[in-house]
C-alpha cells in the first residue's frame, strides 16, 4: 500500500543553524511529493514540492532532496529562524495526499 513516514518525531536546533527533516516512502507511493508546514491552530501550509524526475529543488531558504534509489526525501532549512518552529509533514500523491505523522521542529535562541 501507500505510505509516507518520517524518521524522527522531534528535531531541536539552534537559531541560525541548518535543519534537515527526513522522510521515507514506500514502493507504491506517488512520484510527486510535497512538504507542508503546520503551526499550532492552523492548517498545513505549502512549502515546496518535487517530482520524481528531479533530484533536488530549491526555494527560499528551503531545499528538497529526493533519493529514488532508497526512496527517501529530505527538507533542508537554511539559517533556521524561530518562525520556522512548527510541525513539518511530507506528503505524496495526486489529489489524494498521503501524509506522514510529522516532525516537530523546535528552534532555540
Amino acid at each position: 500500500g501507500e505510505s509516507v513516514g518520517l524518521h524522527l518525531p522531534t528535531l531541536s536546533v539552534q537559531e541560525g543553524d541548518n535543519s534537515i527533516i527526513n522522510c521515507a516512502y514506500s514502493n507504491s507511493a506517488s512520484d510527486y511529493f510535497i512538504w507542508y508546514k503546520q503551526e499550532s491552530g492552523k492548517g498545513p501550509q505549502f512549502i515546496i514540492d518535487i517530482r520524481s524526475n528531479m533530484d533536488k529543488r530549491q526555494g527560499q531558504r528551503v531545499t528538497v532532496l529526493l533519493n529514488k534509489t532508497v526512496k527517501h526525501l529530505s527538507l533542508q532549512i537554511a539559517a533556521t529562524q524561530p518562525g520556522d518552529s512548527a510541525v513539518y509533514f511530507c506528503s505524496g500523491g495526486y489529489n489524494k495526499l498521503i501524509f506522514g505523522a510529522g516532525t516537530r521542529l523546535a528552534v532555540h535562541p
Partner: protein
Amino acid sequence: GAGVSQTPSNKVTEKGKYVELRCDPISGHTALYWYRQSLGQGPEFLIYFQGTGAADDSGLPNDRFFAVRPEGSVSTLKIQRTERGDSAVYLCASSHSGGTDIQYFGAGTRLSVL
C-alpha cells in the same frame, strides 16, 4: 483574495447528534478536499470533489459521513450519529484544478464529541 474558510472553527456536540461542517474554497478553485487530523497525526484524506461531483470518496470511514458540493463552490461535510471517535480537526483544502496543483488548506474545524 481570501484563503480557504471553514466554519465553525470549533464544534462541540453530544454522542449521537448530527453535525455539519462548512468549507468555502478559494474563489475559482474547482477541486476541493476534506481531510481529518487526529491529535499528533498527519491529515488523513476523506473525499475529493472536482466541481460538483465527488471524484474520490474512498477515505470516508463509513456511511455516517457524507459530503456535498451542490454548486461547485461551498462544500458541507455531514456526520450522522456522531461517536466519540469522530473527535478530530476536519480540514478542507482547495486547488485550482486538481492533480498536482497546490492544495491550500483552511484552519480546520475542531470537532469534539462528548
